[in-house]
């Protein structure tokens, strides 16, 4: 019988530590599939974030570095400048990329660093126990916005992708979702685009992925996917931003 689905070479054959219904496992796999398909595993260098995906290097079968919380794009900038022939990407959550690391994010993008960014937006801090994130929706309850995010006290959900799209050094930004198989396939296409842009030396590419966090949304895995489709996408519309 023909084998139609197999493990990526870029993924180790190990169980992940992620919660049931978490989007990280899917996102990791999409990155691994893209790396395999582009035949770049032996020259890829990934930067793992601080957050739930900190041990992404336990799952990816290629060179990786940790970075301090928020500093992934500073670390990636240096690695790519030292090894321009390698393929360097960061994998960062919303707190990492759009709160503590906003400065590093904006300036790496503004320098037009030839990097690919996989940006996981799950509207909450997962690893630390479900606190308010820069991307938390208005009204969304978290452990540090117990009555729900309120604009006067907490400000508005930060649309970092739209902000970055204003910068001339940025070549590609797309927002995708993991809410359904159709959207997952689109997400993979976007990640592939971001890596191909780097191969073609086009500059800074970022894919924002709306990703479920059932544990800290207080929803079941299925409800979480529906919440992305019915609620989150209204604040963070899908599609090509730049």
């Amino acid at each position, binding site marked *: 019988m023909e084998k139609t689905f197999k493990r990526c070479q870029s993924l180790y054959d190990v169980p992940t530590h992620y919660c049931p219904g978490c989007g990280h496992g899917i996102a990791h796999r999409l990155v691994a599939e893209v790396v395999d398909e582009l035949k770049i595993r032996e020259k890829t260098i990934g930067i793992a974030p601080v957050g739930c995906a*900190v*041990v992404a290097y336990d799952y*990816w079968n290629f060179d990786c570095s*940790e970075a*301090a919380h928020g*500093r992934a794009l500073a670390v990636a900038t*240096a690695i790519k400048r*030292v090894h321009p022939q390698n393929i360097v990407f960061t994998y960062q959550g919303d707190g990492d990329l759009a709160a503590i690391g906003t400065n590093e994010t904006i300036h790496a993008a503004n320098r037009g660093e030839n990097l690919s960014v996989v940006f996981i937006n799950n509207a909450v801090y997962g690893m630390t126990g479900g606190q308010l994130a820069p991307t938390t929706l208005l009204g969304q309850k978290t452990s540090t916005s117990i009555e729900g995010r309120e604009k006067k006290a907490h400000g508005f959900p930060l649309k970092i992708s739209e902000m970055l799209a204003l910068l001339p050094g940025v070549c590609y930004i797309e927002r995708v979702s993991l809410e359904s198989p159709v959207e997952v396939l689109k997400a993979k296409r976007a990640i592939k685009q971001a890596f191909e842009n780097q191969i073609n030396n086009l500059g800074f590419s970022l894919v924002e992925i709306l990703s479920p966090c059932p544990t800290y949304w207080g929803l079941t895995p299925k409800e979480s996917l529906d919440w992305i489709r019915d609620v989150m996408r209204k604040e963070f519309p899908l599609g090509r931003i730049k």
Partner: protein
Amino acid sequence: MVKAKILISGNEAIAQGAIQAGCSFYAGYPITPQNEIIAYMAKQMPKKGVFIQAESELAAINMVYGASAAGVRAMTSSSSPGISLKQEGISYIAGARLPAVIVNIMRGGPGLGNIAPAQSDYFQATRGGGHGDYHLIVLAPGSVQEAYDLTQLSFDLADKYRIPVMILGDGILGQMMEPVRLSVLGSRCSGKHQVPSTQHLKDWALTGCKGRKPNIVKSFFLREGALEEANLKLQRNYEIIRKKEERFECLFTSDAKVILVAYGTMARIAKSAISQLRSAGKKVGLIRPVSLWPFPQKPFNLKNKNVKYLVLEMSYGQMLEDVKLAVCGRQRIEFLGRSGGGVPNEQQIIDKIRIISEKS
């Protein structure tokens, strides 16, 4: 052929020393009084190297982390408030066992302080500075020539021990111009400690996993016992460094009744005072620590009960604690320090020595 000397500032000597040592990555953020370093690196970094003016000190040190993880010799420089910002990255560099060179041309603090020379970051430099159980090798040049030489040496030590090395100077050393011989590595302090200027094999570096298993650069050890194991490896490394990498200069210590202990710019002023006192027949000597971590233990002769030490600092009793630890309460220690831009001058030192000598 002996190369002629050229007249350059301490900051320029550090930058040139770095390039001479094969530093091919520099990231920094402007701050006085070390701006000549970033300007020199911008101008002189070889074409194959990388110079980045970062958006912050945080970004700069994390770029150095990345460049070092990628396997090249990398440096950043700053001054006191900027070095505080870099502590996050320095701790990660130490934890990930990456080599790196960090230059701190100290200015007055705390807070924004001022831009006058100071030595008040001694504790921060020698105790690690950031979070966690770690050390940097800390080297304190006392002349522009030594700034050049020690910067070259610092890259070798960083690679050899996979450790961040700090060059700790002050605004006077950074700004002062002196003739320098641009020779290839030759530490002029305590002779025998030279390290061959070879690039160590960096089989841990991130280069893409072609033909080998993936390399991981990290400082996160979640499994029970794993962090303790990693920290013990650090401690074993520090133990070797403590044994092998003490550096110091001794002047007239064999017959001295009063031994001054001072480093960097402060040691130069101490030397001026000593030459005046020696010509007046006073038996005064100097111990000049060149490595501040590891702090030199060897020059302190604990058997000589008649000797007194006078610790001199452009800070209020920081190195004093290391001298106390070295002397273990067996000999008398006096202290003279100023800070916030105040620098003890020769006359103050001479006056202080007179007072000490009159005490029984």
